[in-house]
């Protein structure tokens, strides 16, 4: 036998076996049968819209964390609408420190900015859908502005210009100043609102748009409303910008009624994690079960100066609170729903201090007014921005003569704002009707100008943002940065709980996530220097 031939034959056969599949077919194994090479950009936009509501999306997971940790954990109590003696809300109630509370917006907003960035890349120059989905593109720009504004409002300096450029190899974007970010956000809003075209029924935008069902007019109004809010935000530090953009917003057309409100529809399913309202899930007993007591500050405001009469009550009193009672997993069992007996939990207390304050052992559950469970159905709409706040912003602009508005117009805007704020709750429950007569009576009891006007506007703005405590907190911080009103609106009394981390001052910002501090080489001494709760952000008079 010729062994050489055998060897050669064996090697040839074996090699053929192994390499029978050439490079291409080996590569074919690496084509994911479950994935797409391209996607309808509408789908990405819808994900971002849902995620913007409560931080949830298929990728990020549980919808309640963002609201629970920060909106409820920090803002609701720091801004003294809610009060607590326990739970995460203690952080805002007593000025504590908590990494999750601090980092949640950073962690939960950027991923949705990725989705929006994808829409913009695909519909932008050189993108697969360049020139198509024109209105979707503008809507994505507006939502992007909204999210970036929130981010910089909470942290001051955040990465902006270099973000979303992983494809260009930028893995560690540098931080930008709030001033530069605002300048660009204004530009974006201006361009986007102007670039909307006529609705195109074939582009799928109407079906994809969770907020407005593709109504271009409403998108433009929301864009200008955000512009108005941003303009007022910088009014103390950049009056020129405030003038310019309030004027542009008004000229462009802001919200005209509660029908314009930016609402995110929520649902019972198919999954509790992404479809249900995150605020509701954080409060419902057992499903998070954050204590849900209204603060003394808010209840006292709603009850008016005469605690023995309902005549001076705010009609929202028994909308925002469901009464005093046990809220258990089986339901809310009121002890009383008598408006005269409503009682808020004073901020900055633990059980011990409350007992001392009241002079006896307090049963918190049956002593203080609860949030109204009817506001907290699991499929409750999530409100991003409403008409009432727009009118109140206009009232302030008018009062301060910003953007060409004059003081003469202030009262009209104020009253429209109060009315809209009172009448917007029917989306939560049909019983939450506040009649025009009730509004009128309220306005007659508290005529515009009966107290300092800016303070009245600020208080109404504050009440308007029940549930949207983020914004109430931002507006208070902005007004407290005004040298003429260092207390801010509304006037809040800071608490000084033993061991607090702010020296007894209301928190002014959130801390950056640990992973940024520990991992981003472009996180510099500048950011490190302001990485506490007390440094004001730029528009509140802090460093750029």
């Amino acid at each position: 036998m010729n062994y050489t031939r055998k060897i050669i034959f064996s090697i040839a056969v074996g090699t053929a076996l192994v390499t029978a599949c050439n490079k291409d077919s080996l590569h074919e194994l690496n084509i994911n049968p479950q994935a797409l090479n391209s996607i309808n950009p509408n789908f990405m936009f819808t994900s971002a819209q849902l995620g913007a509501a409560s931080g949830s999306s298929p990728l990020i997971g549980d919808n309640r964390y963002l609201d629970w940790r920060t909106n409820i954990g920090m803002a609701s109590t720091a801004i003294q609408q809610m009060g607590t003696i326990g739970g995460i809300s203690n952080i805002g109630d007593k000025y504590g420190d908590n990494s999750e509370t601090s980092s949640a917006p950073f962690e939960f907003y950027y991923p949705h900015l990725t989705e929006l960035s994808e829409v913009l890349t695909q519909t932008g120059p050189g993108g697969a859908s360049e020139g198509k989905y024109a209105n979707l593109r503008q809507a994505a720009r507006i939502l992007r502005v909204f999210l970036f504004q929130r981010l910089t409002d909470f942290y001051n300096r955040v990465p902006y210009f270099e973000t979303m450029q992983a494809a260009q190899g930028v893995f560690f974007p540098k931080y930008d100043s709030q001033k530069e970010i605002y300048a660009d956000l204004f530009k974006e809003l201006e361009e986007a609102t102007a670039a909307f075209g006529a609705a195109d029924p074939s582009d799928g935008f109407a079906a994809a748009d969770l907020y407005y069902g593709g109504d271009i007019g409403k998108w433009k109004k929301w864009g200008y409303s955000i512009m108005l809010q941003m303009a007022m935000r910088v009014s103390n530090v950049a009056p020129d910008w405030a003038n310019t953009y309030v004027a542009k917003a008004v000229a462009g057309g802001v919200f005209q009624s509660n029908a314009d409100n930016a609402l995110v529809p929520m649902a019972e399913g198919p999954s509790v994690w992404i479809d249900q309202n995150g605020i509701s899930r954080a409060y419902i007993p057992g499903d998070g079960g954050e204590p849900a007591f209204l603060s003394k500050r808010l209840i006292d405001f709603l009850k008016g100066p005469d605690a023995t009469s309902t005549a001076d009550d705010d009609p929202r009193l028994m909308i925002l609170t469901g009464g005093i009672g046990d809220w258990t997993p089986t339901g809310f069992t009121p002890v009383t729903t008598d408006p005269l007996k409503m009682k808020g939990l004073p901020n900055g207390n633990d059980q011990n201090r409350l007992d001392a304050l009241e002079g006896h052992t307090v049963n918190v559950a049956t002593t203080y007014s609860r949030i109204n469970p009817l506001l907290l159905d699991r499929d409750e709409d999530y409100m991003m921005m409403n008409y009432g706040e727009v009118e109140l912003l206009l009232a302030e602009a008018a009062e301060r003569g910003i953007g060409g508005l004059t003081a003469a117009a202030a009262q009209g805007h104020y009253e429209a704002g109060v009315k809209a704020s009172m009448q917007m709750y029917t989306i939560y429950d049909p019983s939450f009707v506040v009649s025009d007569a009730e509004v009128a009576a309220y306005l007659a009891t508290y005529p515009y100008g009966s107290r300092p006007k800016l303070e009245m506007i600020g208080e109404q703005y504050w009440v308007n943002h029940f549930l949207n405590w983020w914004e109430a907190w931002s507006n208070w911080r902005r007004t407290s940065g005004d040298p003429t009103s260092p207390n801010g609106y509304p006037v809040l009394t800071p608490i000084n709980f033993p061991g607090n981390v702010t020296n007894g001052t209301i928190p002014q910002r959130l801390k950056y996530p640990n992973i940024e501090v520990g991992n981003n080489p472009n996180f510099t001494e500048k950011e490190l220097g302001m990485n506490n709760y007390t440094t004001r952000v730029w528009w509140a008079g802090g460093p750029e």
Partner: protein
Amino acid sequence: MLAAKPTHVRAALLLHDSLNIYIYLFTPIKLSNMRHLCSALLLLSCLFAMIPSGFAQKRTISGKITDATGKGMPFVNVAVKGTNIGTTSNDQGVYSIDVPSGSKTLVYSFTGHGTQEINLTSSNEIDVRMAPSVSELETVMVTALGIERTKKNLQYSISQVQGELFNRARENSVANSLAGRVAGVNVTKIASGPAASSRVVIRGAKTLGSTLNQPLYVVDGVPIDNTNFGQAGIWGGADQGDGMNSINPDDVASITVLKGASAAALYGSRAANGVILVTTKKGSSRKGIGVELNSNYVFEKVNNLTDFQTQYGSGGYSGTTLQNAVAKKPSSLDELWNSWWSYGGWGPKFDGSPVVQFDGVTRPYQYAGDNWKRFYETGSTFTNTIAFSGGSETQNFRFSAANLNNEGVIPNSGFKRVNLSLSTNSVYAKKLTVSTKILYSKENAENRPNVSDSPGNGILALYYLPGDYNVLDFKGDPNKLGAVPSLEQQADQGIKIFDQKVPGEEFQVGPNLWTQNPYWAAYQLINSDERDRVIATGNVRYDFTDFLYVSGQAGMDWFTKRGTQQSAPQGTGHNRGGGISEYENRARETNFQFMVGFDKTFDKIGVNAFFGGNRMRRYNEYLGLNGDGFNTPFFNVISNAKNKTYSYDFYEQGIESLFGSVEVSYNNYLFVTGTARKDWFSVLNPENNSIVYPSIGASFVFTDALKIAPTWLSFGKARLSWAQVGNVNSVRPYQTTLLYGASSTHAGAALGGFASGQNFPNPNLIPFTSTELEFGFELRFLRNRLGLDFTYYDQKTTDDILDAAISRTSGYTSTTVNLGEMTNKGVEILLTGKPMVGEFTWDISLNFAKNNSEVVSLIDGQTELIADPFTAEPRVRMVFIKQIVGYPYGMITGKTQLKDPATGLPVFNADGAPIQDGKYSIIGYGVPDFTGGLNNSFGYKNINLSFLIDFKSGGDIFSGTNARMTQAGLTKQSLLGREGEAPLTVSGVIQDGTNSNGDPIYKPFTKTLTPGEAQHYWDRLGNEDEGGSADKFVYDASFIKLRQVTLDYTLPRKLFTKTPIQNVMVSFVARNLAILHKNVPNIDPESSYTSSNNQGLDYFGFPATRTYGFNVRLIF
């Protein structure tokens, strides 16, 4: 492709038949039921009857094999040279073997006794005396690709561990048994329960990537899937086990560790982290059927290492300022509940007075005793194995069946395993050898415990209990442990449910919804899974002549893992609606391999060469059903779920390879080998999807060659080798292109996303390369009484593949990159000695290894990097495990107390609390650099005692458990400063304004804290946020442990002369008996909760346990 079919089909047919048998065997079987086993054997006989036997002329040689003292030696291998025919001697040393005509030589071998070749004469009786180890160097070792070489030839360090060393005192996972056995192999048993995975790192970590530095496991020549199915991270979770949990230690003949690149080079891209070859037992030629029965029963007990204070209970500090705050115990249930006083121990000193507890019941305020003893149970593991073997010179088989039943120390948890294995070898016409092996296993993990973060973690809840609490009071409803008791029971016992839950829902410890009642966690949470697995191999070898062969091999590892997870049943604190998921994971890896080999000696020159190829495919599919909320209350099944969603995952990948090796030897004392392997990968883009891995090495037995060695030097060999291997396993399929996936629908609109989640794909990835230079020597002295094996290696990883954590603001949280360079340099030393021989024997072996790793460079411009933030950051969020240029692998970094830059003194605030430095500083080394083990074995007549001590040093551990327990006022250090205890005085500096640059000015500060301030101090110190100081909770993780003890007694043969029993051995066995030395309080220094690359983090892991019991082995 056609040419492949014969081999393929044959293997498949064998597999098919055997599977049928297994199916028959498995379904009705109770392993103790002998009738079924007999039926099984009948079936097996049928199978063998179907295989045609070879016929050849033959004669029978028999004889007795004795050791140096003249005693009969059992289990000596006897083989006919040049064939696969072999047998072993019985327990008296007697053997009998059928030898085909034409055979000239018999080979006798036994571990530690070398090999003897005896030429056949006309006599049919040959008695052999085995010399005590001319050298183990003559031992045949299994090397890469299953190639057998004598140890003498090898150019690299290779370690073999005999099955004997770990099949009496055993671990559920064989991988854990390697701890302390092999120099340079660092084994960490993950603190996550009886079915947890293991972390085995050989010669230091080579990669930051997701392969977790785990070696390639090869069972009988076939790579198996050792996927880790998930583990705990910062937000908790349960370790879901890995591939090595399937193996029955009784089936393992030996484990060979290919430590370096040279040893593993032939595995190419899969070998970067080393290779562990598991060789299972096989049958041998013998008369009749041999039966071996092994029974092992061990108890398992929690080794409670906590040393907490027991004088202060439930309560807290109260006052209008920190200075006037005093310790207070609860005066009402409201106060207790609303102040979160059902956790920790910040109350006043115990005084025996009545005090209200979490359930509204008043009990004495005094130490309630050891809750660990009450909660944890005595676990047990009962393993039974029966093995049959037999055969002729041309056909043999071994069949074994085993059953393992583990009851965990956490109530209602455990691990069960059934193993069946069959191996057959057949030789046809002296030329064709067919062998098959099939291992079947069924593993059942019951309620894998959650560790790390609190949800579902009953271990954590138990830690937090105040000293005056009795965990038994948390049982609640006796019919549904951990649940709110019935209204009648509440009324009877005066229980008040403060958390407003109704009967059937969780009976909460306190207001923290995320801290589970430990009984609820144990009895109501479900995390169970069942894995059916078949590892099958078919081998065909055809010998053209005695120097030329071809062989083909087909192997498959196939499993289905079916699980149910209910991390939150209905009524759970943090998820009242509850949820459930049912899932199935199917995976398959197949390998087809061929080889052409040549082995011939020309005078003094020997040539051994082969060439071959391999084709690997792996497939994985995951189907999951998820439901949340239940329509019928407390009926926690998927079909009753209100909301239903599903999850699906799929991937496939492949590697194609060609390889070759040439070894040339001169006069049996100089050996030179070169190998090369080229791999093509599916997971990389075609432009850069292949790489060649070369190796070259030489060894020189100078005592044979020079013949001038002094008499005290029995043997000397030097070796030198260089090789490159790699790894692409860190690249998951479909990771090189950005793709999209449409997922669910919300309010009628489709939601889109990225198929690669939050990872940014990289199209330009290339395989990483690990280059290693190794040299070493082996010396034997004083007629082999003393041995030294020394290895030095210098290894370098370039282009490592890693999912690097990137800033979320880039759009993604990670990206897969090739990066930088890492090095590992080290020595491994094995010292063996036989201080006593003769009637009383004493064998001692000491191994140790030192590894110096260094991160040389990372991504351009980056000097630090975090990999996998999910496991790099512990729940006490002031620490990251980081890779830092210029430092060893896996540094522990953390936020520390701020220091005055001028003086280095710590900075305090006016209350005496620490001020935290916002930056992360290096505070420790996450990985030990010095590891080893000392094994002693004593023999006297029928008795053998051996014990293994192992040790690690040079690594640190950040103990989140100690941080949290200090914060909770339970550690002894937290006593300092309390009323009636030694005062707490802090000393350092305090800020006193700022200078003109705005920088702080510090002035000296010393303060003796009031009890209120002291409580605040400890609360801050162990907290991740303001004031938290990670450096205060980093400990030296060095330890010395008494890892294993076995005491064997072989019963005298005369006791059962009239029975078929040939040998009975009874052993006392124990594992993890004692920690002889450690530096960290309250926890086991090995309590790492993750098998990821981020080591050095402890956070409420599974408690350390010790096992002890008995092993009985009967041989018929």
